[in-house]
């Protein structure tokens, strides 16, 4: 074999392996999504959304409590996490722009985004569940909010930085104080970006299980009381999938299907908005 042939063969093999790797990645996506789809759809019945759980063995049980609970916890977490995250990002991109403290908080937020979520669960257990004496929906919402804040904060910072500085100078020149410039000019310019960040952060926390295990815990009865344990889809999936009953497994697949669909739609919506707005 000549040297040229050897180089070509080596190149061919390496590129073939990379192509193979890409298809391995795709294969898993299709496999997992297909599996969730097939099992989930076959278990999807109206009763799943309308009925509360029944004791094992009695047919007709649903997961109404978990759907409502998940919604309550996620909304509460969003209401706590989004304002703090957006305002915090505003500080980094505006008042503290270019300062060391902004850089430090930015790096720490990036680290916080990847900190194990179960550790945040133990933290909330110690500061909220233990003093209150029982698990509660609020504790779960706060745990999710803590996961959400660094995500929203970082995207807000990035999006505000993208707004041209000259736009602010134009507003300053008209005599506007900085807070008015931020609220009326900068936020308006970055609104779609911030909204996308919020959507993606909701997608991020909606699938979290670990931080809810010992904060909002679980509740087999329908409850809207956030002071008490609240059922969530994810914790219910964990409990049902690990349980011994086929009926539970089917419901776990259905719940998994609904939550995956919700999160993928949010993610795709977020990507589409970015593409439409910034390209």
């Amino acid at each position, binding site marked *: 074999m000549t040297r040229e042939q050897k*180089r*070509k063969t080596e*190149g061919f093999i*390496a*590129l073939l*392996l*990379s*192509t193979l*790797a890409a298809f*391995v*990645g*795709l294969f*898993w996506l299709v496999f*997992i999504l297909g*599996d969730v789809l097939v099992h989930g759809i076959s278990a999807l019945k109206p009763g799943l959304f309308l009925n509360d759980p029944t004791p094992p063995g009695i047919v007709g049980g649903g997961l109404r409590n978990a759907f409502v609970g998940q919604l309550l916890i996620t909304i509460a977490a969003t209401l706590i996490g989004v*304002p703090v995250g957006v*305002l*915090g990002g*505003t*500080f980094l991109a*505006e*008042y503290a722009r270019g300062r060391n403290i902004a850089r*430090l*908080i930015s790096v*720490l937020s*990036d*680290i*916080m985004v*990847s*900190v*194990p979520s*179960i*550790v*945040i669960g*133990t*933290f909330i*257990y*110690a500061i909220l569940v233990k003093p209150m004496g029982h698990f509660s929906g609020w504790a779960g919402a706060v745990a999710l909010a803590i996961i959400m*804040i660094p995500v929203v*904060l970082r995207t807000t910072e990035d999006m505000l930085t993208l707004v041209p500085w000259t736009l602010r100078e134009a507003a*300053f020149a008209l005599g506007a*104080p*900085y*807070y008015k410039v931020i609220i009326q000019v900068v936020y308006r310019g970055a609104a779609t970006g911030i909204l996308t960040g919020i959507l993606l952060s909701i997608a991020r926390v*909606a*699938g*979290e*299980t*670990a931080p809810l295990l010992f904060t909002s*815990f679980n509740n087999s009865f329908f409850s809207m009381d956030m002071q008490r344990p609240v059922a969530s889809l994810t914790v219910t*999936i*964990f409990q049902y999938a*690990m349980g011994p009953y086929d009926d539970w*497994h089917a419901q*776990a697949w259905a719940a*998994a299907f609904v*939550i*995956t669909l919700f999160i*993928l739609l949010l993610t*795709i919506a977020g990507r589409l908005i970015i593409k439409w707005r910034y390209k």
Partner: protein
Amino acid sequence: MAMTSKKNPVDLIFSSITAIASFSVILFIIGILYVLISESSPAIGKFGIAKFLASTDWDPVKESFGALTNIYGTLVTTVLSLVIAIPVAIGIAIFVTEIAPNFLKGPIGVAIELLAAIPSIIYGMWGLFTLSPIMSTYVEPFLKKITAGVPFINILFQGTPMGIDILTASTILSIMIIPFTASISRDAFNLTPAVVKESAYALGATQWEVVKNIVIPYSKLGVFGGVVLSLGRALGETMAVAFVLGNNHRITTSLLDAAATITVTLANEFAEADKDIYLSSLFYLALVLFVLSFITLAIAKFFLLRAERKYSR
């Protein structure tokens, strides 16, 4: 920048509110560290630091606890999953940046992002119901068979293939971190200036030689940072492994044995810990995990920042 903030009282209030909001991140980190240390202080007092980290005990009845089995399980599953994930992830990144025709680049990029968005509990449940039976009936007996005569390697595959073990857990974990590593590597690869690549092509380099000699050396800081970041993520992953690891507090040499990671132990035992010292030991485990992953993530961030600075020059 702060030109108007001193004059206008409303501006002062608004800037203070934003400052407080952003300092909440620092507050959380210090708060988590402080609370975990204070909650685990009974266990730190009773077992010490070195003894706790080096002890393989995990006995709620005798109230004797050590972290070694959990740390061992965490490290083994993490390292094994990275060994599986890194080659595939880098292959995907090479494919997406260099090989794929333009009409495929977009869809495969989106598919990778979607794979990253699927919540970990879905991976875990899928692992329990779908992957675990496949592993125990096909993959694991096969691996046992081909390694049966090989000294040392056969130790890794001793025992009955049950599907609830380190190998299955690491496989799921690797599927979970592939998209993450791949998208960071892709971003790093994309930063290679086209001029440099074109110069190499002009000298007669093949596509693979450009990747091997130009793109990878140019982006190695970024790729390395991405790999360490994935390591940090894998260390703290809970639900993807909780279903299929079995929560077994033993140090095993076989990949076909059940084990326990710090996260799996916390997920399974935290809400049920009935004694103070038991709960305190679990907080101690959470502290170990927090410190471990924080340091790993900080190292990753350091490399990624250095890579960023290098490219922007």
